[in-house]
């Protein structure tokens, strides 16, 4: 094929008309507190992993909710499960459990 020097980008839009809620539904079932996140970012600001990588638990949970699970797969296992975020979260979310559940389903239990 002739290379015309341009390419097609994937759409960056979150398309809520496509049902991609499977992972979020599993998460809610196993850890109902996930529904009550208020996206305040306390977890992300306290997270040591977040100081050095683009790991952001607030955003991970939000993207999971919006069905954008692809982007989570490569980063979810960066969490050290230290639990700092859980101490800090004002809504009392069981954040470590949330990470473990997401990791379990995204990586089918493999810790890499």
């Amino acid at each position, binding site marked *: 094929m002739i290379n015309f020097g341009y390419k097609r980008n994937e759409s*960056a*839009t*979150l*398309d*809520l*008309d496509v049902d991609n809620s499977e992972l979020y539904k599993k998460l*809610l079932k196993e850890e*109902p507190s996930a*529904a*009550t*996140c208020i*996206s305040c970012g306390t977890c992300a600001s306290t997270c040591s992993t977040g100081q050095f990588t683009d790991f952001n638990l*607030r*955003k991970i949970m*939000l*993207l999971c*909710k*919006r069905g*954008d699970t692809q982007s989570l797969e490569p980063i979810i296992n960066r969490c050290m499960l230290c639990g700092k975020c859980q101490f800090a979260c004002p809504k009392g979310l069981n954040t470590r459990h949330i990470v473990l559940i997401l990791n379990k389903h995204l990586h089918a239990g493999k810790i890499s």
Partner: protein
Amino acid sequence: MKSIAIIGAGIAGIEAASRLSKQGHKVYLIEKNPEIGGHVAQWDRLFPSQEEAEIVLNDLIKNLNNRAEVLFNSEVQHCGKKDRQFEIILTGNKNLLVDVILVTTGFDTFRAQRKEEYGYGIYENVITSTDLEQMFKKHNVVCKNGNPPKRLAFVHCVGSRDEKVGNRHCSKVCCATAVKQACEIKELYPDCEVFNLYMDLRMFDRHFEDMYHEAQSKYYVNFIRGRLSEAGENKDHQVVLKTEDTLAGKPLKLTVDLLVLMTGMEACDTQKTLNTKLGLRSDTDGFLSTKDVFTQNNFSNTDGVFFAGTCTGPKTIPETLADARAAASLVNAYLMS
């Protein structure tokens, strides 16, 4: 016997009228509509307790106990100072001479047609929060085609916090109303997906945060932070929404069966015509300017003219009633001095 004209028989007017008539004054309650109760009369249930608006309103009317003279279908044609009193001429040339005027003209609901890009009056499945309350009242929450909505979105801040329509102010009650209505939809149709598109969630008052928590934990309402840029209609008459999920930092597309616009509060037209007649002033937001925001919020700059309720800015129902009671006691003290 001293006399008072209360202009506007919404809940502020009714509450002030019952207090002042109980204190032995002659009260004229002037209402431009054929019924009293104002906006609350159009509502089904009230946040945060889900109490029926009708019950609250009936309690207020019962308290009034027919003591005040209610003048229906009456608008102020003319009013002005006459010696130490005020002369008021109403529609039908009825003439009143009173010692005090209490302005309780309330607010006007933002006309959603003015926000044309949201399609109210253009797309058949775009309604306002007031329309939804009417549907709740009639137990008939459906799309135009008669089907229950499977997906529904609320747009916060319609006509508020929007300098494009000339309103910078926040209308205060629409966030709580949107969360209340979202929960009511889920109560009615548990399988309906509900989305709230908000800029900030202003759940400021007692029990409001509990409502928000319940909307998330019990009803799984989806809160999306971002202002709707425009709505379109597809061939099935669904409403297609484009917004940014500002917390994800990504544009977002969403199609719903029914779109509810949370129309805000604006200064009321009746009040604006009173301004010139009584020498009252409005602030830049259009609502009445009070003598002092902290200590004299029920006083106008004209001696003998008082304010109560949402004519001095958006208020919840408990705030409006408390303001009406405060105004009534100040009017009473003024008349006794």
